[in-house]
């Protein structure tokens, strides 16, 4: 089960992920990110505090947008991942490519600094 909440704030868009991202619902995540790209949003924050699990298909979604983020100078930050999910990012090496912060404040700080 995956619930995605989009909250548009003044400086950024927050995508809240609740539950598990797997092969069956990774398309939903993909659509949300694609939409944000289409809307020309420059700062995207992903709230991962409620994310319980992410499969390789879910990681594939983040991975596939890395080039787009670089190309369009988009600040993409994931924050609040629990240890287990963080480990998944770490093992794959995605933490070397995506900015991952511990909490919302840090993430927002990065947005303001940019």
């Amino acid at each position, binding site marked *: 089960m995956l619930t995605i909440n989009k909250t548009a704030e003044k400086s950024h868009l927050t995508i809240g992920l609740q539950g598990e991202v797997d*092969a069956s619902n990774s398309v939903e995540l*993909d659509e949300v990110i694609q939409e944000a790209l289409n809307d020309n949003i420059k700062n995207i924050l992903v709230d991962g505090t409620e994310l319980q*699990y992410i*499969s*390789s*298909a879910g*990681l*594939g*979604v983040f*991975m*596939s947008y*890395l*080039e787009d983020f670089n190309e369009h100078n988009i600040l993409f930050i994931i924050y609040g991942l629990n240890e*287990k999910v963080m480990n998944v990012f770490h*093992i*794959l*090496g*995605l933490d*070397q*490519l995506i900015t991952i912060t511990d909490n919302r404040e840090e993430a927002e700080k990065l947005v303001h600094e940019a």
Partner: protein
Amino acid sequence: MVKLPQIQRGKIYILLAVLSWMGLLLVNLIRVFGEINQMEGVISKEITWVLEILFFIWLYIYFNDSIKKNENRNFIDFIWRPASTGLIATGTSFLIIFFYYLLGDSRLSKDLLLMNFFYHVNFAVVSIFLISTTLSWKHLILYQKSKAIVQQWQAYEVILLISMFFVLISQASFNYGFMFGLIFLIIYGAILSINLKWIPYLTFREKWKSILFMVIIIACTLYLFFRLVSYTQQNIHFVNLSENLFLLGLFVFVLLYAIFSLLVTLFNLPTSSVFEQKLTEAISFQKLSQSIKPGENEEQVLDILMDSCMSAAYVDAGWLELHPTEPEESSIIQLQKFISNSERQEVLEFLRKVEPFASYLTKQSTIKKEYLYGQISHETYKSVLVLSVSANKKSLGNIFLLKEVKDGFNKEMINIITTFVGQTSISIENHRLLNEAIKNERYREELEIAQRVQRSLLPSELHHNNSFEIDGFSAAADEVGGDYYETFRFDNENFALIIGDVSGKGTSAAFNMSQMKGVFHSLVQLNFSPKKFLSKANSALNRCLEKNNFITTTYYTINTALKEIHFARAGHCPTLFYSQSLGCSRFLNIKGMGLGIVRNEGYENYLEEGYLEYQPGDVMVMYTDGIVEAKNQENQEFGYDKLRLLLDHYKALSAKEIKSKIVDEVYDFVGRETLPDDDYSILVIKFNA
């Protein structure tokens, strides 16, 4: 051997019947001769009666037998037989009259013995006619028989048998007993004669034939009856054979059944077409439900539907309009019957103007009705019935039926047509389901082939030497999976080892896995360092992996002479290593990045190369994320810690045993009954020297 008496049985009966008749003739002639010459009591009357009874019985048995052989004949044959026999009997009778006419006033014409001889001939043909006709009637009465009717008939046969012997009991003619018996026979015969279930099954033509034959039978019966009676009145010296209860009873029965049949057939004539119509409808139903067999197309069933509808309601013209399969195409007009294109356009124009058709034809999806019925003011066609044909809740098209009369479709016709349409829908649905099932079966077979091919991609034997044991296990969640491991031997001391996991699962993962195998075999021969190997593999895979696909892998090179391992991790689960000297296991966590994630030259920067020296007793466990992410009923993951503790516990066992223990543990954790939701793979190396 068994068949021989069967064939001759009929002949024996005829022979016996002829013998009894000849005996009867002889006895009676002697009696008449004696009577003329006043020589009383030469032969007693009883012999006459007994011979007469025997003659009847043999005839009855013979005809009963011969009719049984022809039981599958149609009804008209059963009526034609008595009619022809009647004509022959009447003909014989006329011949006798003609013979006497030729004799004129000669002495021979007054001869009593000759007269008696002809009387016997007449008697014989009448008996044959009556008995064979009775048995034909029996067959007709017992059509669609029930137990009650069969019992009634058997009782009638018993009564007939008794009536034969009546003459022996009471010799006086036309006394009360005789009259009572006759009346009883008449009433019983009349009751039996109401069994006329065969008549509705005759076609219109056959009914006319049947009426003709019945008239012949009635005429013959009446003529023969009066002929016999006239003999009785003309002759003084003669043995009366016709004053027999059996014969009179049969006369009445044959006549009654013929009259009843005639009348019923006559009154059935006007409704005959209705019955035939219903029969055609039933056959149409059968055709509709059986018409589509695998390999045949839907058009044939629609054709049958169209024909059935048109014949069921005496439709003058019609056509079938199929909705286009693609939205931009126009509808297909099919099965246009008895109407020209221009006329069809005209009718459509009228329909667009008149309700309820107008709203249906313009916005089709809104109205869900089985049929639409109404009148139009077209010059030829006055009433219209439009039906929607659908399958799987999707409308296929419309049937347009036109009649030249106003109010041409009554409720029954519409009912039958809508059922035809319903049946067609079911037939088409079944046909489609069947086709789909066949297709799915083919897919399944293809998948089985894929499974076999993929199994062969995993090595059946893993390279090693005496310094270490190695054992592996792999199971896919779906028919095919994305896990991969392989070994390679450079020389006696140098080995390469790879374990990998393709993102996602199922068929797409399996395809990428086979690419990985290709990349491995191309690059491994170049004997790169693990870091270089992965960097090259990344650039090779960048060109073939889809944007959101990646592969995680760890590549190892082992030198058993130096007892050292070099390895690099491309985003794969960290290797679990048990060190004999440390006395515990740990994960070899080095920096790494999955293949296909960074698709440029900078990839190598994200990699790190690990190095370790091993000792005898050390164990290395390589696995895919399916193992550590395996979930139990409470949605808990198997986890890294559990794996580490397991190795600590089983480190002393052989590589094969360690592998089995871990695999068993994982399956126990998940629950044996639940299907795995990811691919599981594990590779265990135990260093011995």
